[in-house]
């Protein structure tokens, strides 16, 4: 009998263990890796090395649940002996409520834009937030989400939040069209209002006005069931003029789709709004529904199965998790913006469709792919971010910052903290096209009391500064500090710098505490905390 060396045994075990765990779920990940690696070869670049577990845990918490991990969560992960501990962590995070809230934050901004304080209150009050969180909590298919939002006719009371996408736009039908195009189709159509898009000429004026036409019979109304968007069975016929004065009648059409036929009244003809043009709504108390509903036509004849729906979504998810879309900017998927990996994009879109528009599955496979797990230090000889040869640093969103600062200071967080509102105003960007800091952000962090007060108000024994001050040696103190805030141990130099600074307070207790508060400020506002890397 051949004596198999122990190491080889172990290797075999590992291999078979890994093989046993190779599920259907790994094949898409392998496909992603393949497309990306192929481009590295073609460009002859060496990608960054893989990220350590210590770095990975901070990164994936931020990307999937919108905050840094607590030291306990970090330790739990690092202590996990399983070879596929990252897979388990990802699955754990994706199933958590924090994930639903974080993705709801992202998609609220992507679909609705940043709003005034009043808008955020209304979005909660009218169940838009709750509905959006449920989408991610229940992992609702994206095509279903699109359908619900665009039709805005809830079939059960718990889906009533979906009407808010249209409702918040206050009957501004052009604004609605300009929001739908990037949100669901990944293209911007504003330029096509007065003439065919000057750069991406495939986007025509008739597409713009066609999209408007699908929604221009809609009107906000308040019912006993709450706000609804009712729809007339008549009207909405007009012409649009270009700059030379030529006018064209608006037809029901959109980019990448045909024309939905509809009888058109003569110019003088007054249409009569007759009761027989309507049927009752599914929900009692909801407004009646036109038999021929333009919104419904849009959903069933245009949006359903439209290739851009899947394409736009996978591109956006890629941008969210990898810092940059395969088409960049992520909402300009027109002929003037080539995808960096066209085959990957095609494949991802098809795979997404085949999966039934499974959002969580898509996020999972991207997060477990090789490009996601690369280090964030740009390697030598590469400068094109579109190669995804290193993990692209990105700034924390306002919500990620607000949660992470609380986690660092308190070990827990509240989603209703006033810090959210203050940070939203200073750091409104989600998926910015470029990463650069403007001076007003630095001024805010330096001079606005928001962050300083948050720190100085954190005086419970369980909070960071009090806990630090309970410890004896500078090493212990600074270790707790950097482990909590950065998720790593301090260097010797860091320990001596901080210790030196705190010592200047002498025996003065309040002065010591103030020193530590300034130290905490310095770390919370440092680049290492500000960015996801």
């Amino acid at each position: 009998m051949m004596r198999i060396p122990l190491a080889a045994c172990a290797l075999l075990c590992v291999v078979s263990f890994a093989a046993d765990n190779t599920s259907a779920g790994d094949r898409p990940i392998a496909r992603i890796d393949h497309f990306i690696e192929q481009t590295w070869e073609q460009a002859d670049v060496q990608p960054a090395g893989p990220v350590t577990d210590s770095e990975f845990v901070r990164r994936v918490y931020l990307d999937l649940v919108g905050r840094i991990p607590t030291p306990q969560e970090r330790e739990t992960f690092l202590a996990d002996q399983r070879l596929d501990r990252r897979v388990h962590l990802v699955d754990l995070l994706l199933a958590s409520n924090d994930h639903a809230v974080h993705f709801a934050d992202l998609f609220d901004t992507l679909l609705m834009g940043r709003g005034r304080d009043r808008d955020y209150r209304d979005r909660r009050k009218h169940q838009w937030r709750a509905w959006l969180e449920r989408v991610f909590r229940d992992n609702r298919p994206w095509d279903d989400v699109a359908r619900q939002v665009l039709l805005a006719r809830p079939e059960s009371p718990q889906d009533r939040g979906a009407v808010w996408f249209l409702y918040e736009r206050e009957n501004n039908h052009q604004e609605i069209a300009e929001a739908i195009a990037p949100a669901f189709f990944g293209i911007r159509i504003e330029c096509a209002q007065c003439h065919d898009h000057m750069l991406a000429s495939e986007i025509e004026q008739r597409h713009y006005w066609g999209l408007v036409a699908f929604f221009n019979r809609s009107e906000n109304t308040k019912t006993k069931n709450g706000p609804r968007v009712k729809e007339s069975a008549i009207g909405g016929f007009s012409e649009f003029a270009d700059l030379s004065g030529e006018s064209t009648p608006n037809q029901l059409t959109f980019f990448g789709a045909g024309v939905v036929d509809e009888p058109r009244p003569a110019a003088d003809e007054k249409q009569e709004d007759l009761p027989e043009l309507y049927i009752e709504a599914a929900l009692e108390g909801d407004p009646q529904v036109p038999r021929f509903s333009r919104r419904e036509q849009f959903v069933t004849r245009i949006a359903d199965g439209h290739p851009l729906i899947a394409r736009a979504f996978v591109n956006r998810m890629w941008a969210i998790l990898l810092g940059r879309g395969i088409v960049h900017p992520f909402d300009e998927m027109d002929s003037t913006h080539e995808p960096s990996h066209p085959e990957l994009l095609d494949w991802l879109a098809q795979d997404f469709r085949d999966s039934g528009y499974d959002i969580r599955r898509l996020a999972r496979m991207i997060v477990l792919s090789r490009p996601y797990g690369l280090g964030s230090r740009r390697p030598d000889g590469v400068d094109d971010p579109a190669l995804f040869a290193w993990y692209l640093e990105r700034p924390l969103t306002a919500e990620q910052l607000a949660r992470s600062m609380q986690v660092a200071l308190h070990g827990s967080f509240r989603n209703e903290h006033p810090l959210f509102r203050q940070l939203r105003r200073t750091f409104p960007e989600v998926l910015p096209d470029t990463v650069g800091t403007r001076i007003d952000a630095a001024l805010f962090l330096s001079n606005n009391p928001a962050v300083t007060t948050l720190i100085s108000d954190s005086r419970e024994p369980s909070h960071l500064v009090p806990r630090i001050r309970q410890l004896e040696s500078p090493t212990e103190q600074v270790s707790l500090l950097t482990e909590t805030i950065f998720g790593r141990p301090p260097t010797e130099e860091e320990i001596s710098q901080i210790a030196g600074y705190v010592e200047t307070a002498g025996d003065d207790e309040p002065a010591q505490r103030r020193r530590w508060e300034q130290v905490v400020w310095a770390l919370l506002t440092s680049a290492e905390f500000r960015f996801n890397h």
Partner: protein
Amino acid sequence: MSNHRTPPAGAQTCGSSEHTLHRRLFLLGSMAAGCASVASYAGLFSIPALAEQTRRDGKKCILLWLCGAPSQFETWDPKPGTDTGGPFAAIDTNLPGVQVSQLMPRCATIMDKLAVIRSMKTEPSEHFQGIDLMTRGEKPRPPFTRPILGSVVAEQLGQLDSPVPQFVLLDPCPEGNEFKAFKAGNWAGWLGAEYGPVRAGGEYSIPDILRPETLSETDHSDREALRRFFSRKYQNEQRSEAAASYNAAFERVKGLMSCAPLFDLDSLPEADRRRYGPGAFAQHALQARHLIENGSTFVMVANGMPWDNHVFQHEMHQMLVPELDNVLYQLVTDLDERGLLDDTLVIAMGEFGRTPWLNEARGRDHYPKAWSLAMAGGGIRGGVVHGATDELGIDVAENPVDNHQLFATIFTALGIDPDESYDLPDLPTFYHVEGDATPIASLLV
């Protein structure tokens, strides 16, 4: 407008106990040099040596950014009595044989100080692309972002340790369609965000510019020094451009705080404010002069995109052009009287011109094929009209000028070598001006 308070009187200067405290932070490398802890704007010039240093050797620039694109027919290249000339007449100027629109009577008296190019010929006819081309000088070459003119000038001629921002954008209009999108983009490009503009004007009165009362001067400096220590470390170890930009923004905070009064329109002399005119653009043009006089290097003044008159061309230009006329006149005259004109280049320009024909909506549309701009001072020769258009203004008839030649001329006038390359690591070779563009000799002093 801005409603901040002026910094408290008696702010610290060198020699105080604060200085001693700061010495403790030498480990953290907090203070750049000696007494550079400038706590107040007044403090800056109370130290004679420092005041001398900040007085300029290099040139400066004011860009009156006429966004939306002004009509050359109603400004520098009138065609009275023709089908395309529009309803306004032309008037003689103090340059024999040269006429301007009747809407510019004041500039007509100082044409000997202005240089006008009537033969601009560029490609983009869409705003965003036009703005991009005429503020950066070249077409885009993604993924690299060429810095805006102001960023280049700030980098080449500005003084980085001056507390006064070297590149300021004054634009009180929060909206502006394509220009709004442009304002949200990356202005400083590969030079790094520290060369991006500080934006002010109207409601942009730089919030959070004053230290909160609950925080002492020392704590404010010390914690920034600490922050910088940690951030620098991260930036260097990570080779992080994002962190570099982030840190650069913080570098400017202190300086900016010390010049808060510069951004308050109400602190400008009343007589000057009346002379320039009441409109927002005029007021901010005055503020630009003030900023330049007090240490800034490049100030860009805009007010949204009011010149884009596809509808109501003459109804709008009748108001906009006289304001521009007066502003340009006041600026050039003021700078001349103060002995600053030779060192300060004033440019009045939009992203293209407007069509010779009037559209159906009482408007002129975009026209990059033949358009005009004007400059004065800062190494540009006055009393020159360069180039010409044909009888109806449909095409350039003589000496077409494109963005390359224009930028070559502007850089040369300012003392920046157009053929010099940007010396930056990890960047392909880029020159200040690409190709073989020669500066226009007749426009240079």
